[in-house]
């Protein structure tokens, strides 16, 4: 195939942040009509590079060419005017605004709101993408998939010729990913260039025409179209992993495998689980404003030595469930027992002291206190407890010893123990959170989206830890995830949650995925 002309070209882009060289002379060509996938571990600099293109960051060095012309992109407006649209890793929709208002942002010069035009555009692009979005509803009430679609519609309406999608699939169901793939095919046929960032190798090969890998801020390599077409999955996987983690490919081979090249690896069933550690009976946990709660009585048990999964599309009551168990919300009815003790009326701290742990999905928002040091964040759930505090007095040495041990054990990449946690990457934060929750012999750990947004390696580490937690038969785990493969890999049983209702619990035996899928769809029918 003849080379299509370049839509954008990055030459020698460097960008540094205090203490970090996030992009180091990266050069990248994206051609018209292609989906170009960008891979790399957490903190590799993928988002930074794309933000340079979208006008969020100014590069320290390097030049950008759009359609062959050298350009300066000083602000997001410049990027939009050049036809570069970006759907950011973190949503740039305003939840309290309506769909229409979100579309209208930045769309008019004068006083008047171009409501009519926005409605027409919404209709046109909804038809193109084959979706339906109500213009008058508040964005906060849309599902994450719908929000993603809205962002794409908005980028298209702004006349984007280059569309950047930064981890768009992290919140989508397999079906959503398929839809997105269809849409992208449609768009590239019209000559759009798409840059697609993901952590899932499988997706990269399914969706991408070419794949580039960033490693520690530098371009490690690009796999061209011919190779992509000619190579088998196994070969391509080998190449990418070698680019991402040079020298570690052998060690990570198993990991890449479980990412879905040869079908999910299934947890081998343990013969018999121990006594029940966490029992929910007929609990109701109301949602916050505009959020789906656990609205129908839910009963579920986690036994010692067992991993129970909770499957479902995000926003179907997962967070109320997790927070209700952890004590961050009150259950309106029903009973929650921890190793036989009723904890429904107990505080968060009291439940922790009974051995309940909660790995939150909101790492930066509540998982850590961003300005506090790594060391303090590693003991923040034991404030006041020995050996770190004796009669309320801080034992600094004990804290540091413990923190240093965890940093080593979990390979937490931090410059020092005193570094503020907020300055670390998402993957590192998750390691801190997991390390903290798994120390001091927990009985039951609730994981909420434990590997969301994590790179292959960190994902493997976290999953490995979950497996090791229950191995001894002393503890149990409840894993809430939107990633079905993850659940199949980890769990003994999988409960399916839909619209705040427990649709059923499936034993993880061959064929379970069909049954789970059916339960999820069954919930959707209502």
């Amino acid at each position, binding site marked *: 195939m003849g080379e299509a002309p370049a839509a954008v070209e990055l030459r020698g882009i460097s960008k540094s942040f205090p203490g970090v060289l996030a992009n180091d002379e990266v050069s990248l060509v994206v051609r018209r009509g292609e989906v170009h996938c960008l891979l790399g571990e957490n903190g590799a600099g993928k988002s930074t590079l794309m*933000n340079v293109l*979208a006008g*969020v*960051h100014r590069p320290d060095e390097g030049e950008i060419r759009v359609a062959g012309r050298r350009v300066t992109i000083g*602000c*997001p*407006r410049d*990027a*939009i*005017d050049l036809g570069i649209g*970006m759907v*950011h890793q973190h949503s*740039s*929709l*305003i939840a*309290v*605004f309506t769909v229409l*208002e*979100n579309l*209208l*942002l*930045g*769309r*008019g*010069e*004068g*006083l*008047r*709101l171009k409501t009519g035009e926005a409605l027409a555009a919404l209709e046109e692009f909804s038809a193109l993408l084959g979706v339906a979005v109500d213009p008058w509803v508040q964005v906060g009430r849309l599902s994450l998939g719908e929000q993603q679609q809205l962002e794409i519609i908005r980028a298209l309406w*702004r006349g984007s010729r280059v569309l950047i999608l930064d981890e768009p699939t992290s919140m989508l169901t397999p079906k959503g990913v398929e839809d997105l793939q269809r849409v992208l095919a449609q768009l590239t046929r019209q000559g759009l260039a798409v840059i697609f960032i993901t952590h899932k190798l499988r997706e990269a090969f399914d969706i991408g025409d070419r794949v580039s890998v960033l490693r520690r801020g530098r371009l490690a390599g690009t796999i061209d179209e011919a190779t992509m077409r000619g190579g088998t999955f196994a070969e391509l996987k080998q190449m990418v992993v070698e680019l991402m983690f040079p020298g570690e490919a052998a060690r990570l081979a198993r990991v890449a495998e479980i990412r879905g090249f040869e079908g999910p690896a299934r947890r081998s069933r343990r013969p018999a689980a121990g006594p029940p550690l966490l029992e929910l009976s007929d609990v109701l946990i109301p949602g916050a404003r505009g959020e789906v709660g656990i609205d129908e009585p839910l009963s579920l048990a986690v036994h010692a030595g067992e991993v129970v999964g909770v499957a479902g599309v995000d926003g179907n009551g997962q967070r109320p469930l997790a927070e209700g168990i952890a004590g961050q919300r009150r259950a309106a009815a029903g009973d929650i027992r921890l190793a036989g003790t009723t904890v429904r009326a107990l505080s968060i701290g009291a439940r922790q002291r009974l051995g309940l742990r909660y790995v939150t999905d909101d790492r930066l928002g509540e998982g850590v206190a961003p300005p506090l040091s790594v060391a303090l964040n590693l003991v923040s759930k034991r404030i006041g407890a020995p050996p770190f505090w004796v009669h309320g007095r801080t034992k600094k040495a004990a804290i540091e010893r413990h923190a240093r041990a965890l940093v080593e054990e979990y390979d937490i990449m931090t410059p020092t123990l005193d570094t503020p946690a907020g300055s670390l990457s998402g993957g590192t934060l998750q390691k801190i959170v997991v390390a903290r929750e798994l120390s001091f012999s927990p009985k039951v750990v609730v994981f909420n989206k434990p590997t969301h947004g994590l790179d292959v390696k960190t994902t493997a580490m976290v999953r490995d830890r979950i497996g090791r937690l229950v191995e001894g038969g002393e503890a149990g785990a409840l894993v809430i995830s939107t990633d079905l493969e993850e659940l199949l890999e980890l769990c003994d049983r999988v409960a399916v949650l839909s619209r705040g209702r427990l649709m059923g619990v499936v034993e993880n035996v061959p064929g379970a995925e069909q049954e789970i899928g059916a339960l999820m769809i069954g919930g959707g029918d209502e």
Partner: protein
Amino acid sequence: MSSLLTSEFLAALLSGAVIAGAPLLFAALGETVSEQGGVLNIGLEGMMLFGAYGGFVVAHWTGSSWIGFLAAIVAGLLVALLMVVFCVRMGRDQIVVGIAILLAVEGLTSLLHAAQFGTSYPRLGAVPTVRVPWLADVPVVGPSLFGQPAIVYIGIALVVVVWWVLSRTNPGLHLRAAGWKPAALDNAGVDVLRVRTVAVLVTGALAGLGGGYMAIVVAGVFVPFMTGGMGFIAIVIAMLGRGRPLWVAVGAFLFGIALSSATSLQLAGVNVPTDVVQMLPFVTVILALIIFARQSYLPSALATPYVRGRR
């Protein structure tokens, strides 16, 4: 007590409420604008005070209350410029800068006043009132509500204007976006700092006008520290109004009633200590907060400086 409900009492009360409420209305409308845009102006009082000073001095020189009002607006803008430079452009802490503004303006106006007038306090003539035809003839409410200086009607018109801009126009949409999620606005290609700059300047102009009104219409004289906490009351009104100009107007009027009722009560022969009367509006709001126990929904990015690409 029988005279408490006489028409004179009511007329005095309403008229006093409008007079005392108008500066609150201007300032609180202004604060509403910047709060919706994500800037908390703790220095509002400073803007009012400088407006009062500038308005008074110019009105004193020129003998024209209108030029005085213009000067008050300019004075408010000047102070707001500090807020723009330090908070919007440099991204510094809004509360610290607000307090700095207040302290500096208090000191500066007091100093300037002393340098110009020593310890004398020259007075301005009364500002002419404008009677709205027909309406002003309605008994009791007529003269008090529709026989006010023209600037009061401008204030009422501004309520409608601010409401319209906030809810029906592009700048209003952008302003609210700057208050709720500035990064989203920026990514949509709108310059957040520019939106916030304009918002803060509008606040300065309105607060300056409110202060000018206090000096030119209400007092007819400039006294150091004369705003006496009105700026803070305006902030409270704006926060309770949650970005809805009509509620801001109602709040300003209610606080106006409370502030003026001491004099009206005295007119009616009832002697309530001023301390009690001046406490009442705050007590009422606190009681309301306790009873309804409502969260105040403030824009989520309020008081957070915006720096593109920072996380």
